């Protein structure tokens, strides 16, 4: 095992679906408390990689350690140490705000008083204490996403995986969302985030760019910009994904 500061450790990860190689020899690690951006065009293999990291899919070969556990041999332990939020699903629309919190709190093994305490804290921090017993469907998409993130970190996981968390929300909400991400990172939660918005890549500590199942770049945003002589991450991305 690598040094203990590595909460994610991936070595020679290969994932094949028949003849198609979705992930080709991935190598990277993520430090504790880091905000790690995972970029790539659609079909570049991001989702496959995130599924493997979350224990939802098994690697064809290679070593994948998350929160100190091998995903192949201890997927259950990995699942307990992570949080996950996907682009598609925020929370259940036909449950109230609190019922959603309680459901996922219980699933992640929190006790009832603990859930109550943490949900009160969370709701007052978000400023939606009044909406506690309203159906989720009455909230706007932005609020749903912020709430979904807060629920994903409710059990204080070591790592939270965010799969395109901000797709479809307005720029102001995106900013607020990133403030939440920073707060969690400050509390020591490692954030692994995939995104389509390249301005968001600038907010990350380090960024990976995947092209055709391979990692073509991995560094801090400023180092990448300097290395490729670009002004923005957008240019970096275009230069790497469309070399011509």
């Amino acid at each position, binding site marked *: 095992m690598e040094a203990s500061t590595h909460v994610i450790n991936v070595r020679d990860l290969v994932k094949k679906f028949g003849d198609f190689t979705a992930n080709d020899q991935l190598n990277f690690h993520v430090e504790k408390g880091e905000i790690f951006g995972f970029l790539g065009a659609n079909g570049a293999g991001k989702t496959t990689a995130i599924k493997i990291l*979350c*224990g*939802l*899919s*098994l690697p064809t070969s290679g070593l994948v350690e998350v929160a100190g556990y091998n995903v192949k041999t201890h997927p*259950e332990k990995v*699942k*307990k140490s*992570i949080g*996950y*939020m*996907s*682009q*598609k*699903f925020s929370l*259940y629309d*036909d*449950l109230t705000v609190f*019922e959603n919190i*309680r*459901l*996922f709190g*219980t*699933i*992640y*093994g929190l006790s009832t008083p603990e859930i109550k305490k943490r949900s009160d804290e969370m709701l007052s921090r978000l400023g939606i204490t009044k909406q506690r017993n309203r159906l989720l469907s009455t909230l706007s998409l932005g609020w749903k996403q912020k709430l979904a993130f807060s629920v994903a970190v409710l059990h204080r996981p070591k790592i939270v*995986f965010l799969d395109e968390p901000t797709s479809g929300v307005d720029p102001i909400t995106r900013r607020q969302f990133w403030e939440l991400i920073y707060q969690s990172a400050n509390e020591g939660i490692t954030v692994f985030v995939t995104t389509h918005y390249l301005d968001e890549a600038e907010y990350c500590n380090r960024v990976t760019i995947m092209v055709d199942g391979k990692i073509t770049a991995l560094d801090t945003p400023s180092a990448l910009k300097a290395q490729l002589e670009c002004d923005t991450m957008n240019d970096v991305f275009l230069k790497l994904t469309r070399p011509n």
Partner: protein
Amino acid sequence: MIVKQLWSFIRKEAMHIFRDKRTLVVLFVMPLAQILIFGYVISTEIKDARIGVLDNARDYSSRQVIDRLVSSGYFMVQDYYSGREQMENALRRGDIQMAVVFAPDFGSSMERPDGAQVQFIADASDANTARILVNYAEGIVAGYEIESTDVTNRRKKPLVVEARMFYNPSLRGVFMSVPGIMAMILILVSAMMTSISITREKEYGSMEVLLISPLQPWQIILGKVAPYVILSLVNAFSILAIGVFVFHVPMSGSYLLLTFVSLLYILLALSLGIFISTVAPNQMVAMFISLFALMLPTILLSGFIYPIENMPVWLQWFSHLMPPRYYISALKDIMFKGAGLFVVWKEVLIMTGFLVAFLFLSIRNFKVRLE
């Protein structure tokens, strides 16, 4: 902790069901509407069937036969005809359901060895009813024949065929439809609703979130189906209650056995629902598979409405693959004949076989999907 997780998940599923008013209406009103419709409207009972008489004999015996037909309560004379053509037209127009034709020498020929001639011509465009009408009329005429001739003069008939309808002597349609409706509703609630509710989680993406969570796959599946088991049982018993108390359907067997067989069938339907959800990519497909692959065959091929014996042989073979067939057959045995486990063991065994097969397929498919 595992129990607590599971319980919170079941509670969530129950909330989904109870907050969706439309589904709730479908779940509770539909079974009741079904049984009332089948009980009151679609009836294969014979009462006051319209008959026409072409009496070429016009004698005492022919009038006696007509009187008996009418007094049985099954028939009602719509018209008397003077010629065959007139009678056939009435039959063709549907004015009458059956014609009774007496030969000219009906009365006198009753004493002759080759017998008297009476003809029943039924409108077989409704084949089931036609058959029942003719059977009834034959029975009534046979009864008259025995009474009106003395033993010595009776025709040398070696045997009199007496068809009797056992277990449902008055051929009340609602008796037949109670087991059928139970089979249909349980398939609908258990298989369709679960397959839709599981595919909905897939469609919305929440399944991914659940699979990544510490919940085990079996907890997810169990949590999803548990509320439907209870709903299905409630439905089964409400249909049964209406059948027994409103329509006086006999229930001569053991309620315990009935519950056991129903539970087995519900589990079978649920495993079918889970299987469908592993195949269907979204709610729409799940619903169509449930409707066309489950509902229609249940209605058409399981002996619910059409007798299996009347089907072409290849369809009869096909109907062996319909799980509801065995449930309906077991229910009928238990309810009408008071049969015990020793009579329905074959059905129980076959349903258990289906259950194991679908569970096996679902687990295999579920794993494949996770890869």
